[in-house]
């Protein structure tokens, strides 16, 4: 449907005024969610509100506490709901890519890749090999980026404040690479359907080599600080356990699932973008508690470095964008002498390429879990429906179950270990 312009007075946003927004659930609904002891006043209902230093964004938790022990934990999400899926219905496939950056904003390139992979699958576009290898390098750097923020904020919540500053310092190196490659520090929109926006600059290998040289020593530093630290282990071992069957039943993916002992990694199970050309291992835990998830993610750093080394060594020369002019814009110099290129350029920029009718689902393994895009094309140049299978949404659901019987301070550790991003949960 065409985007209709409406007058400001009729905007549906004005139907709910600020004063009228109802945030709390009704008493009838509450009675079904909390234990009967809350209604007599024996246990306390505490609101861990949307603005809180340890909730990693705007997550609201309704906690039913018996002293310091949690009887029930009810998450209330939606405080960052952005309507990205609705906005994407009004944009062409190329213009919707910046929107995908903003779902899981700590790992922007993996979201780009998931969406572009879905578009390429739907339309049937081949990606050249150099672009695939570069995508792998950028995906692994993005995974390290996401894990660094996870480590920094998780350690900050549990009390190890210096780790936060170290992780941010490391992250600046990766953001320098993002900036050199695409121009923006975070929301790069560099991965486009058909390949990449443009080839990497000449000093890209030096930047990546700096990361590969510096990181192993820094990771050793973090491990010395945290891994065998008795205070860290006191707060994380045995906390927030979830068994393998429960994790599968709740649809958890990523390090949360692997920490419980299930070997599922989309890169190994359904390889995309030539991940099958590289050798790497997948860390799988056993106990399903916060400490095992921490160990899985720390080991994933080392595996990412391994993959980047192999990819940089094997990087082939060649184009980074597909030759199919119906999908990818022609190089600028060609427009000067080829009428066909001019027309292709014109059509791509005014209308965009068309996708056939049908549904596809494409998933990548982002730092948080299986990030999937369900794309429904309707024959026109705009999607009929874009749905993001957000890993944080699924990983957050069993929070109530994981935290039963835990102490109030453990909730902070559990939320940190699930590694949620509210942009992903609420979209």
């Amino acid at each position, binding site marked *: 449907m065409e985007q209709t312009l409406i007058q400001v007075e009729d905007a549906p946003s004005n139907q709910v005024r600020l004063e009228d927004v109802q945030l709390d659930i009704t008493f009838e609904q509450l009675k079904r969610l909390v234990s009967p002891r809350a209604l007599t006043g024996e246990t306390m209902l505490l609101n861990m509100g949307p603005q809180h230093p340890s909730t990693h964004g705007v997550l609201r938790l309704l906690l039913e506490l018996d002293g310091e022990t949690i009887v029930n934990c009810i998450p209330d999400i939606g405080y960052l709901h952005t309507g990205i899926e609705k906005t994407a*219905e009004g944009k062409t496939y190329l213009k919707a890519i910046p929107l995908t950056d903003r779902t899981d904003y700590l790992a922007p390139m993996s979201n780009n890749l998931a969406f572009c992979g879905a578009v390429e699958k739907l339309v049937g576009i081949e990606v050249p090999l150099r672009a695939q290898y570069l995508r792998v390098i950028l995906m692994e750097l993005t995974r390290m980026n996401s894990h660094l923020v996870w480590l920094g904020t998780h350690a900050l919540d549990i009390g190890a404040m210096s780790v936060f500053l170290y992780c941010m310092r490391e992250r600046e190196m990766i953001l320098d690479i993002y900036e050199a490659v695409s121009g923006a520090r975070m929301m790069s929109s560099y991965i486009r359907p058909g390949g990449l926006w443009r080839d990497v600059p000449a000093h890209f290998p030096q930047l990546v080599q700096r990361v590969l040289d510096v990181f192993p020593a820094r990771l050793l530093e973090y491990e010395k600080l945290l891994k065998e630290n008795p205070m860290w282990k006191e707060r994380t071992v045995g906390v927030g356990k979830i068994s393998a069957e429960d994790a599968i039943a709740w649809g958890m993916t990523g390090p949360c699932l692997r920490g419980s002992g299930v070997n599922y990694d989309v890169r190994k199970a359904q390889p995309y973008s030539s991940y099958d050309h590289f050798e790497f291992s997948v*860390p799988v835990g056993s106990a399903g508690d916060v400490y095992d998830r921490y160990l899985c993610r720390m080991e994933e750093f080392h595996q990412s470095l391994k993959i980047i080394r192999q990819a940089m060594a094997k990087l082939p020369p060649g184009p980074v964008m597909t030759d199919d002019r119906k999908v990818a814009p022609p190089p600028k110099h060609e427009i000067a002498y080829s009428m066909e290129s001019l027309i292709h350029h014109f059509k791509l920029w005014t209308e965009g390429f068309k996708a056939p009718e049908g*549904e596809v*689902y494409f998933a990548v393994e982002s730092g948080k879990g299986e990030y999937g895009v369900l794309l429904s094309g309707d024959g026109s140049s705009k999607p009929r429906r874009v749905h993001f299978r957000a890993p944080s949404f699924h990983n957050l659901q069993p929070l109530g179950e994981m935290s039963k019987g835990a102490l109030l301070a453990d909730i902070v550790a559990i939320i940190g270990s699930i590694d949620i991003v509210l942009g992903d949960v609420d979209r």
Partner: protein
Amino acid sequence: MVKLVSEPIRPVADTRDLPQALRQALSDKISEVVIFRDEVTLIVPREHVIEVLTHLRDVQQFNMLTDETCVDYYPREPRFGILYQLYSLPRNLRLRVKVMLSEYDPKMPTAVGVYRNANWLEREIYDLFGIHFEGHPDLRRILLPANWQGHPLRKEVPVAVEENAFSFNRARIDAQKPYATE
């Protein structure tokens, strides 16, 4: 303790055998099998969907519900399609189950009994599309405020909300916006 698993890539089971096997096992319950871009979609009528999902989970080993969502095929009738994206960990296979619903009867049985994570997913579909799930333990809005009117992801709700501001209408838009002054 964490162990490193570096087994070679499991071969993806051949999806060409899957439609035939499913047709044999569930012949009268599925209306159609669609294969598009190497992905198998079963179109199931609403009455049989819980039976089909239970069979797929227990017998065919599709033990993870990766996603459940809704698509609005507006000018078509039936208008809504509920899609269940399933994954089988032991067999490494993906499958999609689709149920078509009419605009005048947007009701579905809940899949919470089959897959636990359908809880929040169905709340999201109810919130954004208005499909009512019968038997759901806690069907209320999840992403929008509790007293929001309407279901925004339906096609009749326009995508944009504010007029694009150009030089000729900027003053008018500014005059109508409710700026806070204190």
